């Protein structure tokens, strides 16, 4: 309706800001990832080093370990959060409890809104080896005291538990929103055809859940690739490197070892992994919708 010049006036501030704080640092990161950039050794001179950082990352067992752990964490948490979230959504959608249902909706918002760093604090409180609630439950079940956060096998489970507490409501709320979008006519027609709840779910409701599910899976995968706050507060990546996911490891190389070239290479690589995974999800799930 008005001239493109007017449009550009409206658009320009945001574009300039995002170029400055978004693109420029990213290009900078790519550049640094190609250099010797060890702050503690300025004598090296920050020159380009022919992909030496990437080669170093590729041959670093800790990098592969942390990447593998990240995927393991995803495989551990995603199905649980998905199933729990779906159950909660179907429960809240089916039952007409009115008041209780609205209370439940409000309750679901609380974990989501809790600052991830504080979720880590709560995790430390609940899984403490001396007075933690988790230990009390073990004790009630007749077990001996467990040092959850000190045991390499259990620490990651404890982190996964807190992550599940925080994010299951997200699955539930997205599914609940999708279920509300299922047309009544479709449900009525289906109930004439079959009285099996499963058929109704599989053939009528499921297709409506797919777009939301895709979005959530992409987001949760990206989140796992950058999960930091919770782990940093709860375990600092320990014991050993038992809970050191990719972003925690990258942060450690960057800001405790101060090899910024290698850390940038890892960051760029994990960005690539995230993008590839997102594309993969879209392909797999949208094919099923067709």
């Amino acid at each position, binding site marked *: *309706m*008005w001239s493109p010049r007017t*449009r550009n006036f409206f*658009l320009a*501030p*945001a*574009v300039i*800001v*995002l170029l400055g*704080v*978004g693109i420029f*640092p*990213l290009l*900078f*990161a790519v550049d*640094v990832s190609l250099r010797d950039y060890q702050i503690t050794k300025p004598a090296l001179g920050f020159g380009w080093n022919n992909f030496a950082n990437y080669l170093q990352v590729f041959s670093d067992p800790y990098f592969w370990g942390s990447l593998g752990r990240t995927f393991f964490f995803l495989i551990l948490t995603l199905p649980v959060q998905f199933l729990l979230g779906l159950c909660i959504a179907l429960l809240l959608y089916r039952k007409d409890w009115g008041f*209780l249902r609205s*209370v439940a909706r*409000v309750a679901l*918002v*609380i*974990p*989501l*809104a*809790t*600052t*991830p*760093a*504080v*979720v880590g*604090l*709560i995790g430390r*409180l*609940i899984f403490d080896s*001396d*007075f933690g609630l988790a*230990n009390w439950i073990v*004790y009630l079940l007749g077990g001996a005291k467990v040092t959850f956060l000190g045991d390499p096998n259990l620490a990651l489970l404890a982190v996964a538990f807190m992550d599940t*507490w925080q994010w299951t409501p*997200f699955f539930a*709320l*997205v599914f609940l929103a999708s279920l509300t979008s299922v047309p009544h006519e479709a449900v009525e027609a289906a109930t004439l055809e079959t009285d099996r709840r499963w058929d109704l779910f599989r053939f009528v409701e499921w297709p409506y859940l797919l777009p*939301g599910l895709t979005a959530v899976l992409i*987001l949760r995968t*990206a*989140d796992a*690739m950058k999960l*930091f*706050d919770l782990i*940093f*507060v709860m375990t*600092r990546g320990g014991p050993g490197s038992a809970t050191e996911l*990719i*972003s925690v490891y990258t942060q450690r190389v*960057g800001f405790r070892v101060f090899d*910024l070239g290698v850390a*940038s290479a890892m*960051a760029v690589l*994990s*960005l690539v992994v995230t993008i590839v995974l997102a594309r993969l999800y879209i392909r797999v799930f949208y094919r099923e919708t067709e």
Partner: protein
Amino acid sequence: MLVIVATVFPFFWMVAASLKTRADVLAFPPVWIFTPTLDHYREALSRVDVARSLFNSLIIGTASTFLALLVGTPAAYALARWEWRGKREVWFWIISNRFMSPVVLALPFFLLARALGVLDNPWTLVAIYLTFNVPLVVWIVMDQFRAVPRELDEAAVVDGATPFIAFFRVVLPLATPGVVVSAILCFIFSWNELLYALVLTRAAARTAPVAATAFMSGYDLPWGEIMATGTMIVLPVIVFALLVSRHLVRGLTLGAIK
């Protein structure tokens, strides 16, 4: 019922711990019935860094939200009202800034801030938080602008208003709900952010989540104070989140969190 208990319980447990005496927090088996005390809140607040970090978070969150609205709403208007080739690409590029991992950007931001001498400066965080706040504003507010009929601002222009007046006087007021929701979400995300703040601040600009992590070293942890601090960090966010709970899912689907 079970759902409600499961989602609220860990939060409740933190608040309870913040109100217990030290002996009660450390009791095993856990104490369920106790006389609440506000001592830990007093102790936590009397530590200058906790009070200051809460104040810093407030300032940084508010300033970054305000700036994001300032540059984001006009851009949303341009995207909602004009059609041009490549518009989808511009839109997608703006939104994609939100998917960027903080770990990727933390390093270059650290180097740049060091070179410019603005480490440990609250305004550095204000600027950096725009990377995730501006896309959020553009996305939500653009949706809202689309719901405002074109005829309204066109009529204003026919009556002699410039596009800018039409935008500020006609469209923006009608889109207030969307603007408010995006502002609250921006504030929440800024308030919760940890990684950038951890890397880019030391003492002066330290934010609340960083202060929370600072407790977690040493053996004799002041649990009551830690949980009081945690509660003070989380409470404002939960209040805000409940205000926008209806729109929260859509905002989060844009790329959580952090």
